[in-house]
C-alpha cells in the first residue's frame, strides 16, 4: 500500500483495489460508503469540537480574557467535557410542539453539513465525492439547511423561535444569491464546476491573484455572504441573544441543541473551505513567480497542511467579524444584500466575463 502525504490518490486507489479483489462491486461500494461515512462523522465531531474551542480562545483574546483554562492543559478538554454534559442532559420538549417536525429539524441541519463536507477537497485525492458539479452541489445542499432552521422555529411553539426562524429564512435565502454569484465569478475564470478541477486550475496561481480585481471583490462578497449564511455575527439575527433569547433553538436542549451548535461550526468550516478551495488555491502551496528556492521549500509542506492553514485564516477572519461588530437589524441585512452586494456581484460577473474573454487575467 503506497502512502504519500503529498498525494493521497495512490493510497485511496490501493484501498479500492484491495477491496474489489476480495468483494463484489456492490460490496466494495457498500464498504467504501461506510468508511467514508465514518471518516466524515469523526471529522465533523472532532473538528467541530476543536472549532468551538478555537472560537472560545479567539473570543477570549479579543476580550482580554484567557478563555477556558481549567479542564486539561490550556482548557483543551473543555469542549469535550461540555459535549459530554450536553449528551447527558434531559431532552425537554415543549408541551404543544409539533413533535415530528421538532425532532426532525436538528437532523436536517446536521445532515446537510455532512453532505457538504463530502465534496470538499482536503488534499490531492482526499475527497469523498468529486462531482462534476461540485460548486453547484455545495451551494444547493447548504440551501437545504434553512429548512431545518425554519422547521425548528415553527415547531417549537415559541414566538421568539418563530421570529428567529423567519429572520433566518429571509436572510439565508437572500444571501444564497451572493454566495452563488460570487462563486460563479470564479467558475467563469476556472471554466469548471468540479472542485478538484478548480484546485488544479490554480497550480499556476491562486484565483484571487489570477482574477485580480473581480476575484478580490468576489472573495470579499463571498466572505460576507458566507458569514451571513452561517448565521454568525454580525448577521446572527436568527439567534439574536439580546432580542430573541436564543432564536430558533431556544426550545432545544441536550443533544438536539448540540446538533445545532455543531452544525453552526461545521458550516463555518464549510464556508471557509469553499473560500479556500475557490479563491485561495485549495491545497496548493504558496508560490511566488520565479523564487525557485522559496517555492521548493513551500512544496515540502504537505497539501493537507496548506489547506488547513488557509481554512484557519478564513475562519479567523470570520471570528474576527463576530467579536468586533455589533449586530445588524433585519431590514439592514436585507438592504445590504439586495441593494449593495447583489448589484456589485452582477457587475462583477460582467467584469470577470470581459476579463476572461479578453484574456486580461494572469
Amino acid at each position, binding site marked *: 500500500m503506497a502512502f504519500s502525504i503529498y498525494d493521497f490518490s495512490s493510497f485511496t486507489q490501493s484501498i479500492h483495489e484491495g477491496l474489489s479483489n476480495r468483494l463484489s462491486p456492490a460490496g466494495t461500494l457498500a464498504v467504501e460508503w461506510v468508511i467514508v461515512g465514518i471518516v466524515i462523522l469523526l471529522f465533523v465531531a472532532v473538528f467541530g469540537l476543536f472549532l468551538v474551542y478555537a472560537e472560545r480562545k479567539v473570543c477570549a483574546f479579543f476580550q*482580554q480574557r484567557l478563555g477556558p483554562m481549567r479542564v486539561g492543559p490550556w482548557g483543551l478538554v473543555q469542549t469535550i467535557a461540555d459535549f459530554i454534559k450536553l449528551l447527558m442532559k434531559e431532552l425537554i420538549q415543549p408541551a404543544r410542539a409539533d413533535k415530528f417536525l421538532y425532532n426532525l429539524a436538528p437532523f436536517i441541519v446536521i445532515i446537510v453539513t455532512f453532505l457538504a463536507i463530502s465534496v470538499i477537497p482536503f488534499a490531492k485525492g482526499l475527497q469523498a465525492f468529486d462531482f462534476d458539479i461540485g460548486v453547484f452541489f455545495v451551494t444547493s445542499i447548504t440551501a437545504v439547511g434553512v429548512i431545518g432552521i425554519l422547521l425548528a422555529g415553527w415547531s417549537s411553539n415559541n414566538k421568539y423561535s418563530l421570529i428567529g426562524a423567519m429572520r433566518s429564512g429571509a436572510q439565508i435565502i437572500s444571501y444564497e444569491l451572493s454566495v452563488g454569484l460570487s462563486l460563479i465569478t470564479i467558475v467563469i475564470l476556472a471554466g469548471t464546476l468540479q472542485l478538484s478541477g478548480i484546485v488544479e486550475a490554480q497550480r499556476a496561481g491562486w484565483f484571487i491573484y489570477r482574477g485580480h480585481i473581480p476575484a478580490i471583490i468576489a472573495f470579499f462578497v463571498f466572505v460576507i455572504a458566507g458569514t451571513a449564511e452561517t448565521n454568525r*455575527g*454580525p448577521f446572527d439575527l436568527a439567534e439574536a*441573544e439580546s432580542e430573541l433569547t436564543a432564536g430558533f433553538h431556544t426550545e432545544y436542549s441536550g443533544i438536539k441543541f448540540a446538533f445545532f451548535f455543531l452544525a453552526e461550526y461545521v458550516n463555518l468550516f464549510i464556508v471557509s473551505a469553499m473560500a479556500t478551495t475557490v479563491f485561495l488555491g485549495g491545497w496548493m502551496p504558496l508560490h511566488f513567480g520565479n523564487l525557485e528556492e522559496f517555492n521548493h521549500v513551500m512544496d515540502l509542506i504537505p497539501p493537507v497542511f496548506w489547506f488547513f492553514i488557509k481554512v484557519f485564516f478564513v475562519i479567523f477572519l470570520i471570528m474576527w467579524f463576530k*467579536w*468586533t461588530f*455589533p449586530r*445588524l*437589524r433585519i431590514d439592514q441585512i436585507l438592504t445590504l444584500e439586495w441593494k449593495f452586494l447583489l448589484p456589485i456581484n452582477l457587475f462583477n460577473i460582467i467584469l470577470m466575463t470581459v476579463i476572461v474573454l479578453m484574456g486580461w487575467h494572469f
Partner: protein
Amino acid sequence: MGEAEQDRIETQEYLVNMGPQHPSTHGVLRLLLKLEGEIVHHVDPHIGYIHSGIEKMCESLTYPQIPYLTDRMDYLSAHMNEEAVCLCIENALGVEVPDRVKYIRTIFSELQRLASHQLWWCVMGMDLGALTTFFYGLRDREKILDIFEETCGARLTLHYSIPGGLMFDIHPNFRNRVHEFLNYFREKLPEYDQLLTGNVIFQERTRGIGIFPREAVINYGVTGPSGRASGFSCDVRKHHPYSAYPFVSFQEALDDRCDTLARYKVRIREMWESMSIIEQLIDNIPEGDYQVKLKGVVKLPEGEYFQRVESARGDFGVFIISDGKKSPYRLKFRSPGFSNLSALHAMSKGWKIADLVAIMSSLDLVIPDIDR
C-alpha cells in the same frame, strides 16, 4: 396569489412577553409587546417583580439608617443616592458640612458616574450584539471599584456618606490612585470610540432611531443624559449646584438630535466631563474634618424637605415629611429611571424589536431604581 386568496390570509397583532427573565431587560422588568411581524406597536412595561418597599421601610428607620437602603435602589449610582439623602437631612438640620466633605463627596459622585456610564457602555454594546465591549468596559470599571474599596471597604453599595459628613476619611493613597486612574482612562476612553462609536453598523443601528423631541422629553419628565440628548437642559449640577459643584467649571453635555446615538454620545461626553471635574478637585481637597458630629439621635424638625441630585441616570429627588420624630413620617424618592421608563412606549412605537432593545439600552434603566 389571487386577490381573493390574499384576503383570506388574516394578519393580526400578537403579544410577546419580553421578560421578566430576558437578557436585555437588565433585571426583572417585564415588557408586554404588541407586535406586527417585527414592528412594535405597543410596549407595556410591567414592574413590581422586585418591589422591595424601600420607601415604606424608611418610615420605620432612623435617619442615619436610610442611606443603607438608598444604596440598594440604584446600585450603580449608590453614592449619589446616599448623598441626596444626606444633603436633605443636613439641610433640614441646618448643618453646614466642611468643604473637605463636599469635595470628597463630589469626587465620589463623579467616580460613581464614570463607573455607571462604563457599565452602561458595556451593556449597550452587548445589547446591540457587540459582545467585546462588555469586557472592555468592565476592565476599566474595575479600577474605579478598587479605588472605592480602598477608601470605604465596599465596591458597589458604598455607604460612604452619612448625615453630617463621611463615614471615614479618604485613604492616604486615594489621590495617587485617582490620578493613576485618570491617566489610565484618558488613554482608554478613545478605545471606546474606536470599538463602538465609529463602527458603521453601530451608527446605522442608532442614528435616527427612537427620536424623542424636546417637548415630549419635558412632558414625560425624562431627565439625565437621556433628557439632555433631546436638548433639555436638566443637569441638576448646573441648575441647582450642591456639594462642590459650585467650585468647578464643566460643560453640560447637550445634544439636539434626540435619537439613540445622541443619548449614547451625551454619555460618552459626560465621561470626559466627569474626568475633568475630578481633575479640578482632586489636588485641591481642603484639610479639615471629614465629619460634623451630629447628636446621637437625629430628629428632623417638623416640616417638608426636598433635595435633588444628578444621579448617573438623571434627576434624583428625596422628599421627606418629618413630624419631629427620629424617623420620617413619609419619605418619597423621585427616581429618574421610573420617568425614563414611562417614555419607552412613546419612543419605541413603530420601530422594530431590535430597535426597542437599542432604545431601552440608551435609556440606561436600572430596575431596582424603578421598582423600589
